[in-house]
C-alpha cells in the first residue's frame, strides 16, 4: 500500500476536450463496470454528482434547505458540518435512501430522482457506501459481508469470495482469519474497517464514506485515509466523505464543503481548511467556541 501523503491539490478533474483518446485513457484506470456513458460524461466536464436546491424535512423539521453541491469526476469531496446538520441525510439522498422533498440530484448528468426504479437500481451497482455505524450484516460472517456485492452481482463464486475477502481485508489492515468471525465478535474500529472493506470491495465508481476514521487510532486512521486517496487516484473513483477530523479532511479531500443550517455555506480547496478566510469554516476547523457559529446549548 502506498503512503497516504500525496499532497491534496485541487486537481483539474474535468478536461474540456471530450476526445475519444481521453475517454480511452480513462477506461484503463476506471473500474470495469463503468459505463461508456459515464466516461463520456466525465470527459465532457459534466460533474459526477450535482445537487441543486435539495430540500428535506422530517415531520416538519427542516434538515436540508436547498443544498447545492457539485462533485467533479475522479475527485474527492469532503463534507463538513456540525453534528446533526444533515451530512448523512445529504449523502443518503444522493444514494436514494432518503427521498428529498424538492430539488434535483444528477449523477453523470442524469436526473436520478426521476429515473425508473430499475435504472436507479442499476446505477446503485456502481456506488459504494460506508455507513456511519457500519451496518454490517450480523447474520453473516465477515468474509461474506465483504464480498456481499460481488456475490450478489454474481461477479465471483463463493469459493473465490473468501480469497477476495482476505485481499480486501488486508488492505484495511485486518488478518484473513478475521474473515471467519461474525461482526459481533469484532471491536468497534475493526467493524468500521470491515464496513470500509465492504464498501470498496466491488471497486465502485462512486464511493461515500460516512465518518471513515471515527473510532480508529491515529495511525490506522492515516492508513485508511491513504486507502481512500488510492481509491480516487489509482482506481479513478469519485469519493464523497464526511469527517470531523480536520487532519483527515486535508489528507483525503481535494475539495471541501461546509453545511450549516441546511445549506452549503462554503466550498473550497480542502488544503485551506483552517485558514480559508471564511470565518465560519475557520472557526469550525480550528474548533473555537467563539465565532459566527453558535452552538444551541441550554443553560
Amino acid at each position, binding site marked *: 500500500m502506498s503512503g497516504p501523503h500525496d499532497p491534496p491539490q485541487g486537481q483539474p478533474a474535468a478536461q474540456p476536450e471530450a476526445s475519444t483518446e481521453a475517454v480511452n485513457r480513462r477506461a484503463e484506470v476506471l473500474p470495469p463496470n463503468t459505463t461508456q456513458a459515464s466516461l463520456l460524461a466525465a470527459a465532457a466536464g459534466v460533474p459526477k454528482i450535482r445537487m441543486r436546491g435539495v430540500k428535506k424535512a422530517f415531520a416538519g423539521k427542516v434538515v436540508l434547505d436547498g443544498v447545492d453541491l457539485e462533485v467533479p469526476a475522479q475527485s474527492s469531496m469532503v463534507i463538513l458540518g456540525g453534528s446533526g446538520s444533515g451530512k448523512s441525510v445529504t449523502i443518503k439522498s444522493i444514494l436514494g435512501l432518503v427521498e428529498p422533498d424538492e430539488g434535483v440530484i444528477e449523477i453523470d448528468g442524469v436526473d436520478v430522482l426521476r429515473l425508473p426504479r430499475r435504472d436507479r437500481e442499476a446505477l446503485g*451497482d456502481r*456506488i459504494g457506501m460506508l455507513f456511519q455505524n457500519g*451496518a454490517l*450484516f450480523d447474520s453473516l460472517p465477515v468474509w461474506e459481508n465483504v464480498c456481499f456485492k460481488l456475490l450478489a452481482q454474481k461477479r465471483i463464486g463463493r469459493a473465490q469470495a473468501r480469497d477476495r475477502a482476505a485481499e480486501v481485508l488486508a488492505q484495511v489492515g485486518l488478518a484473513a482469519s478475521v474473515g471467519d468471525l461474525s461482526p459481533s465478535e469484532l471491536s468497534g474500529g475493526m467493524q468500521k474497517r470491515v464496513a470500509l472493506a465492504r464498501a470498496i470491495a466491488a471497486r465502485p465508481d462512486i464511493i461515500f464514506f460516512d465518518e471513515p476514521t471515527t473510532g480508529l487510532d491515529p495511525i490506522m486512521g492515516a492508513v485508511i485515509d491513504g486507502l481512500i486517496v488510492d481509491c480516487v487516484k489509482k482506481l479513478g473513483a469519485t469519493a464523497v466523505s464526511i469527517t470531523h477530523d480536520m487532519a483527515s479532511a486535508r489528507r483525503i479531500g481535494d475539495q471541501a464543503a461546509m453545511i450549516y443550517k441546511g445549506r452549503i455555506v462554503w466550498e473550497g480547496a480542502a488544503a485551506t481548511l483552517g485558514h480559508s478566510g471564511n470565518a465560519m469554516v475557520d472557526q469550525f476547523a480550528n474548533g473555537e467556541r467563539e465565532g459566527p457559529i453558535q452552538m444551541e446549548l441550554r443553560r
Partner: protein
Amino acid sequence: MDLVLNPLAAVGRGVLGACRTVGNAALFALEAVSHLFRPPFYGRLFLKAFLEIAYFSLPVVALTAVFTGMVLVLQSYTGFARFNATGAVANLVVLSITRELGPVLAGLMVAGRISASFAAEIGTMRVTDQIDALTTLSTNPMKYLVAPRLLAGALAMPLLVLVADVLGVMGGWLIATLKLGFVSSTYLKATFDFLQFDDVVSGLVKASVFGFIVALMGTWCGYNSKGGAQGVGGATTTAVVTSSILILALDYVLTEMFFAQ
C-alpha cells in the same frame, strides 16, 4: 353540533387509518410475492426460514397438540356421557383437531415464536441501517428478507399442522384407551371411518394461510419499525398481537367458506 360531529370525526379517522394500514400491508405482501416469481431466488434463506418454522417450532406445537387431544377426550367424554353418546368421542376429537384446533393452536404458537423473531430480526436490521446497506449492495431487501420468509411460512405451516393433527389424535387415543376404557381398535376405527379427506385438507389450507399471515405480520412490522430498541420492541409486540388476532378472524372467514360448500 361539534359534540355530535367530533366523535364521528374520530371514528372516521380511525376507520381511514385502519384502511390505510390494511392497504399498506396488502401492498407490501403483493410486492414481496411478486419477487417470488423474479430471479434471483434466495434458496438458502428460504430453507433457513422453513427450518425455523417447521422444525424448530415442532416441540412446542407437538406439546400443544398432544395436550389438546388429551383434554378434548376428557371433556367430550364427560359431556357425551350425559346423553349416552360416548361412541362419538373419537369423531369429535379427530374432527375438531384436523379442522380447527390443529391449525389454530399451531398458528397461535407459531405467531408467538416466528412473527416475534422475524419482527425483531428485521426491525433490528432496519434501525441499524442494514436494510439500507442491502440496497447499496445491489440487493433488493424485499426480495432478500421478506419474500423467502413469506414462502416459508405458507409452505412450512401445513407440514407442521399435519404433524400436530397426528399427535393430537394420538393424545386423545392415549387417554381414551388408558383412562376411559375404550378399546383401542374400535376407537381408531371410529376415528378414521368418519374422517374425510376434505377435513384434513381444509385444515391444511387454513394452516398455509395462517403461516403466510404470521410471516407477513412479522416481516411487515419489522420492516417498518423505527426508533431504536424501543421501536423494535414495539414492532415485535404488534406483530404477535396482530397475527394472533388475524389468525382467529381469518379462521372464522375460512371456516365459513368451507362450510358454505
